[in-house]
């Protein structure tokens, strides 16, 4: 099969970007979307053109590196999958596919389809942890955790930090990402001592990074490759309200 790509090209963070259109060589429908880009890139290289820069690593939906917007959808069509888990058979012969970087103010474009998501790290550094020192923990089974709470915490912990929630949100809000971490630790006994401090600090940093506010439009949940639930945002809002009243 063959498709036409309309790709965002941008040399560097400060240069202006533009769309370029490329025909693809003959593709195998069993190719992954990223493999298709590999093939196109090799083709471009052979023609003496610069290959399209895109971020990727594990190629199995767990590292959170890959992230393209395909026809306006972060990670493309289909629920619960990252870009690297998208296969060409979901496209039709001759289709024009628009590929853009994740769009959000706090995610500046570095080159072509690569954006800078370091804002997430800075949010995590403000409180996305339990302050334990190595070697100082009690025996693991001294802290029982009810199975439902543990399962819910794992649902939240599954977030791969890809940023698709931000990219899909019309407000570029990072609430889904932040709430996933806040909820994971808030659900577990280990996270209790710092529960209030954590949510206040992480939200403050999230604001400082320039992410928007959640207006509950739900795109994030739809785009999330790990099906992180909006209910975690509600949880975080409640935690925040309680933290406001109780203080740190």
């Amino acid at each position: 099969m063959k498709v036409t790509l309309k790709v965002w090209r941008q040399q560097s963070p400060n240069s202006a970007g533009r769309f370029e259109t490329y025909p693809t060589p003959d593709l195998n429908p069993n190719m992954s979307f990223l493999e298709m880009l590999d093939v196109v890139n090799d083709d471009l290289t052979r023609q003496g053109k610069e290959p399209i820069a895109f971020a990727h690593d594990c190629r199995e939906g767990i590292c959170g590196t890959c992230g393209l917007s395909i026809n306006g959808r972060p990670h493309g069509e289909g629920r619960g999958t990252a870009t690297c888990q998208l296969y060409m058979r979901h496209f039709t012969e001759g289709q024009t596919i628009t590929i853009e970087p994740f769009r959000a103010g706090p995610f500046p474009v570095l080159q072509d389809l690569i954006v800078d998501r370091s804002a997430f790290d800075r949010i995590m550094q403000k409180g996305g942890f339990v302050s334990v020192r190595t070697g100082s923990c009690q025996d693991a089974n001294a802290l029982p955790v009810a199975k439902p709470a543990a399962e819910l915490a794992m649902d939240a912990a599954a977030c791969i930090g890809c940023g698709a929630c931000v990219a899909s949100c019309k407000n570029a809000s990072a609430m889904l990402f932040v709430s996933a971490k806040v909820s994971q630790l808030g659900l577990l006994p280990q996270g209790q001592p710092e529960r209030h401090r954590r949510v206040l600090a992480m939200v403050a940093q999230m604001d400082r990074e320039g992410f928007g506010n959640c207006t509950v439009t739900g795109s994030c949940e739809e785009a999330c490759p790990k099906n992180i639930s909006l209910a975690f945002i509600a949880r975080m809002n409640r935690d925040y309200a309680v933290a406001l009243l109780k203080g740190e």
Partner: protein
Amino acid sequence: MNLIGRLFCSSVGKKLIMAATGLGLVLFVFGHMVGNLQVFLGPEAINRYAELLHFSPELLWVVRLGMLTLIGLHIWAAFQVSAENRVARPVGYDGSPAPVETTYASRTMLMSGLIVAAFVIYHLLHYTVRVEAINFTGRSFADLKELSEAGVERHDVFKMVILGFSKPLVSLFYVVGVGLLSLHLSHGLRAMFQSLGLLTHRCGPLIRKLAPVLAWVLFLGYVSIPLAVMLGFGKEALN
């Protein structure tokens, strides 16, 4: 201090303000709807109800100022949040016009809210301040009086409402206003519960279904009055 600072300056704090004020406003519109529906019980019921509301001017003004604060805070927060959101997302996607899976209501909250505000101003001038020039009936609503059973003179709200809605364009504006309010709330209710932290894994699914139902109830409840008047309800009172 921390509390006030965080509440008014953080993203989540502003949303809490919006939701809390929204809750106040929602309670009012539901209460007001129930009050208004007494129109269908005849002049005595609704006029007595209005009399009751005006029983204590001090209390009335406290409530009015409270409402004014609510709406003021609500609008302030709405503008803040919307402005921040616009800055956070300067560029849209070429590949698709609307963000994934969003509803029309959710994308137009600021607009629907502002039109509702305009409607409320008109409505206050219409029925509360009773400015004659804007009711298009040529009669002063302020002068509509009747005697209660106890023989005290009181304002004839029943007649005012029937008279007011006898003008089709005025009724139409009410329908539009209430329609937009319901649109605002079809998303706003869900958002409110989310912002207040109630849309959790357990109650979330139920509330999500309930929000649009409540919005419809509101719409039908309010619209039934101008509609009924248009269809001839209460005509005899005008003679």
